């Protein structure tokens, strides 16, 4: 009897807190609802007072224009995919190997080298934009996707993350394998690497989101519209005077969010773990 009463009280308390939080969450998501709603509107209706949440008639044309029209964002979408894939692949490979060596191999100067890594980890990317701009211009890589891809393939933070993981692995694995005559590469690739799958996926997710959303680097290192990545191309629908075509801009924005949203929904637990364990955006 008392048990059901406590249960009832707990259920009540759940809603007592739940309702205000749900209202807050809906208010919080209102900008996204507005984005979606405006993406399906004609420009004249975008700023109608009072605001109409359900567009009638829904202007699906906006998405068609954004995807296959004259100023289509699809090429930029493709470039963003290419940049993200190469960055993620490069970072995973180089960071895993370096992190493994820092954690599980001994060689002269290792700890001093790691100290150097530690020191550069706190350097904000923005500080390096001026020299990178100059170098990439000298190297003929300015205004090419390589200027975005190359620095992203070799990261200090990724190396850290992987080192932290490999350091926590038991040494017995390596000893046993060595007794069986395995060489260093086999110990790495057959024994430790398979254990690292969760960390690798976390790092991969982080690297992907970071690359996909990066706006400041291409803003500085890319200048021609035919090299724009997706975030830059969202400004395609702003005219010379700076007035924005609301429907098209919002439709393109929705398109730009879909891939990260998919990753987020499909891999939510990994995603959140990646974010909370590293604290990097």
């Amino acid at each position, binding site marked *: 009897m008392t048990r059901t009463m406590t249960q009832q009280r707990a259920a009540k308390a759940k809603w007592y807190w739940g309702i205000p939080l749900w209202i807050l969450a809906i208010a919080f998501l209102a900008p996204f609802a*507005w984005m979606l709603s405006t993406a399906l509107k004609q420009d004249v209706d975008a700023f109608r007072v009072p605001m109409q949440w359900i567009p009638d008639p829904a202007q699906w044309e906006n998405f068609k224009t954004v995807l296959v029209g004259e100023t289509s964002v699809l090429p930029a979408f493709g470039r963003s995919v290419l940049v993200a894939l190469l960055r993620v692949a490069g970072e995973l490979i180089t960071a895993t190997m370096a992190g493994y*060596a820092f954690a599980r191999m001994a060689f002269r100067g290792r700890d001093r080298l790691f100290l150097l890594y530690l020191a550069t980890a706190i350097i904000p990317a*923005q*500080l390096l934009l001026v020299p990178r701009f100059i170098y990439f211009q000298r190297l003929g890589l300015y205004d090419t996707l390589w200027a975005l891809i190359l620095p992203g393939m070799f990261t200090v933070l990724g190396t850290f993350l992987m080192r932290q993981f490999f350091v926590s692995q038991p040494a017995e694995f390596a000893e046993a394998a060595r007794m069986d005559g395995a060489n260093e590469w086999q110990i790495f690739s057959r024994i430790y690497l398979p254990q690292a799958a969760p960390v690798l996926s976390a790092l991969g997710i982080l690297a992907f989101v970071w690359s996909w959303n990066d706006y400041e680097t291409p803003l500085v290192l890319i200048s021609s519209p035919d090299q724009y990545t997706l975030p830059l191309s969202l400004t395609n629908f702003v005219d010379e005077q700076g007035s924005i075509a609301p429907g098209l801009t919002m439709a393109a924005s929705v398109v730009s969010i879909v891939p990260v949203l998919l990753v987020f929904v499909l891999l939510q637990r990994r995603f959140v773990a990646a974010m909370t364990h590293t604290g990097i955006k």
Partner: protein
Amino acid sequence: MTVATPPAPVRTAVERRPAEGPGRGIKPSGWTGLAFIAPNLLGVVAFTLIPLISVILLAFTDWNLVSGLGGIDFNGLDNFVAIARDPGFWNAVGLTLLYVGVSVPLTVVLGLALGIALNRPLPGRAVLRAAFFLPYIVNTVAIGMTWLMLMNPRSGLVNQTLDIFGISPGWFASSHWALPALIVMAVWGGVGYCSLIYLSALQDAPSQLYEAADIDGAGVWAKFRCITWPSLLPTTIFLAVTLTIGASQGFGLIALITSGGPGDSTTTISYYMYQTGFQFYRFGYASAIGLVTFAGVLVLTLLTWRAQRGRALND
């Protein structure tokens, strides 16, 4: 016979832990180790270390795009003297302190409240958590464009709503309201992230202490002040530091929405550096601004760190 043979290694619990340094189970591997690190190291040297050294050297030159590579002249501390006398720089410092000083504490405090709220049993808790986190994973341009239109002074949704209360701020069209508008966006974008970090810290909160406090009849506020807050202090410091670095270094949103204006009302220090470097192409001066800013943030971070260590020792 003075040199005794070393005693046979005794395996203690401490030794059995995976070694940090070269130790048990790790065979000296000379070139193999270097070969594993080489791909990453070469890239880091080329794209991080050399640019880092260059930006430090550049800060002591008056180099710009026009003078070309041959025109690099070292001018000693001239840039730093100029920075000290540059009203534009000090205006930017003031704006940055205001922006960071308001947005970071607000984001952290609201994130904490939200984290605690989301830690209770709630209907649809997983969806709720994801909802608040969403702004954090969306790119700057999509968010910036949306808010720019939402905050349209005449017909945007924000002012349509505020109209009920008889207020209609000019937001990005007004030099008084542009910075507050950026602060609103920063808080909206960061609260969910903070709450998520707090949530994962709350799961590790010492539950025996809460039980003991319950037995002693401690109230909600007493429990928060004596148990929750101290146990979350490292998380709070971590968030304060990372958000401060993020807020003081980012210029993307400002470049997209306000270009530092109206007037110079949103020219924060990072945008000022971006402008100096990539609109006026004064590479030397921009590098010096970058270095000074970074040094400032670094000092702030170290001070916070020491303050936290002092607190932890006192507890």
